[in-house]
């Protein structure tokens, strides 16, 4: 069973952390992952940096740009991660835009992920129909879960459809906005969280966008299985040593 599915069966609210590989320094990737697991994080999304990350906010974009400057690339990342499963056992997801993956070759990319022990992919700009028509079989061959997003604007039919083709969790975008932009959830979002919870989807939902502290984590996970933190963690990395990751996670969870 895929590590993601195992994790989703645990009877707890899951904390997932996103960071851009190669930031703050090129070789921070592995230490960050290890520190995150040690601090009690449930799942990690490793960002493959892209020059034009149009679904990301300024914080993540800046970290991507920096990572690229540091020398990060698809090959470098795979190389850094080649022994990751010797030390890390929580689910690992690679999150990246489609173009670098396409240039690497989708199948080669998936195979490499499997070799390394990656459990899933999030490719925000890979459309569902293209995935279904061209890539689903490949993902399955290499045992990768593809994670789809929904937003407050996604129609009920489309949510049901996405649920039907998902086999891990649904990435539930808290608000229709790029990462890092809102602070705290309002009535509208809570209503949205409830609405989705009431749909009783077969896939659990993990909330992303706008989660930055214990309060928003608690709000987000009241109705959902877990939550993802991105920009807030990157801001933390900008200002703190890797050894302090522990503190960041502790603050979120308590």
């Amino acid at each position: 069973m895929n590590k993601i599915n195992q994790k989703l069966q645990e009877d707890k609210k899951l904390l997932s952390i996103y960071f851009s590989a190669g930031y703050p320094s090129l070789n921070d990737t592995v230490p960050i992952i290890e520190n995150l697991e040690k601090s009690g994080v449930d799942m990690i999304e490793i960002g493959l940096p892209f020059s034009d990350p149009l679904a990301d906010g300024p914080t993540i974009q800046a970290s991507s740009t920096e990572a690229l400057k540091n020398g990060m690339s698809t090959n470098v990342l795979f190389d850094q991660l080649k022994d990751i499963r010797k030390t890390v056992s929580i689910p690992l997801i690679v999150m990246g835009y489609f173009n670098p993956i396409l240039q690497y070759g989708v199948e080669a990319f998936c195979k490499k992920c499997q070799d390394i022990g990656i459990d899933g992919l999030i490719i925000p700009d890979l459309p569902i129909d293209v995935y279904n028509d061209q890539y689903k079989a490949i993902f399955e061959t290499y045992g990768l879960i593809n994670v789809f997003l929904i937003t407050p604007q996604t129609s009920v039919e489309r949510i049901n459809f996405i649920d039907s083709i998902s086999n891990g969790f649904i990435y539930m975008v808290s608000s229709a906005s790029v990462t890092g932009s809102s602070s705290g959830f309002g009535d509208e979002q809570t209503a949205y969280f409830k609405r989705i919870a009431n749909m009783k989807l077969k896939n659990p939902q993990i909330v992303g966008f706008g989660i930055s502290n214990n309060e928003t984590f608690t709000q987000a996970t009241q109705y959902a299985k877990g939550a993802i933190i991105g920009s807030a963690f990157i801001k933390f990395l900008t200002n703190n040593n890797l050894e302090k990751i522990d503190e960041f996670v502790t603050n979120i969870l308590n």
Partner: protein
Amino acid sequence: MSYNINDKGYYGEFGGAYIPEMLYPNVEELRQNYLKIMAKPSFKEEFDQLLKDYVGRPSPLYFAKRLSDKYNTRIYLKREDLNHTGAHKVNNTIGQILMAQRLGKSRIIAETGAGQHGVATATVCALMGMECIVYMGEIDIARQAPNVARMKMLGAQVRPALSGSRTLKDATNEAIRDWINNPVDTHYIIGSVVGPHPYPDMVARFQAIVSEEIQWQLKEKEGTSKPDYVVACVGGGSNAAGAFYHYLDDTDVKLIAVEAAGKGVHSGESAATSALGREGIIHGSKTLLMQTNDGQITEPYSISAGLDYPGVGPMHAHLYASGRAEFISITDDEAMVAGLELSKLEGIIPAIESSHAFAVLDQKTFKTDDVVVINLSGRGDKDLQNYIDYFKL
């Protein structure tokens, strides 16, 4: 082979809608409605009326005698420079603002490179009383100051794109981000035949008026609606798409797409996508783009802000891949010289974008009786400072 879009939103291999889910409702709403809306008589009527009374269409097809004499062929200029706001861009923004109204949107965003599309968007927003935010690369803001001023006069907010190369590509990223953040009330007026389906097709249809007019104008002047060549510069490719549109399937008519080679195709400072690009995804579309081996999008360069884009629209990717159009790259220097030549021979100062198309006259030999239509996509007022600096006038 068809050179137009198929019902899945692809030109051959190229096109599609590679967009994050956050954009899906917006793009899908547009996709489901654009053809229906465009087909409505009331839409057509309002569009045509504005093109005529507000934009000043039909734009003339002008026989350039002195230029023809010099190059010993028959050269016609399609005078998009005479449109209100000074370029072909307004054909599209008029169409899209009417579309946005019918979709019930109240807020308009746009990206701009040379500023022409930004001005054209700010213009139609003023005309319709709609809020307008234009994203523009910080570098472009500096090199296209007159257009920035025009947008402000027209009541638009100009927001600088500070990331990446701080040019058109980055302005487009910012605009998409804005759209993601404002999914309900906002329409994004893309300025070229780029972006996710249905944008390339919608923009091409709005620009198709250009070749529609060339057909009957040429018929009047030459007795045939078919030129031997149609030449147009390609940034994203909207003016070329418009000029080629009604000739796409008529292979008697040779199509020449002109890209910006900047300081030389292989100088490392270029925007010659067909020569340097590979298939990939940019701004929601599968097309040709300039990128690293790794799939990072390359920062382009051209003296002309409107051609300074690392991709081309999917229609052009297909025209290139299929060989339907010939692609020619023109350097900064060649374009500038061609622009000055047109000024001195015909009294028309072209936009530097358009100058690239004119530089083809020096690269390629046409027959004496060839009819060559060059799309004069815009006027050079916005580029005066560049011309002055370049030629030390």
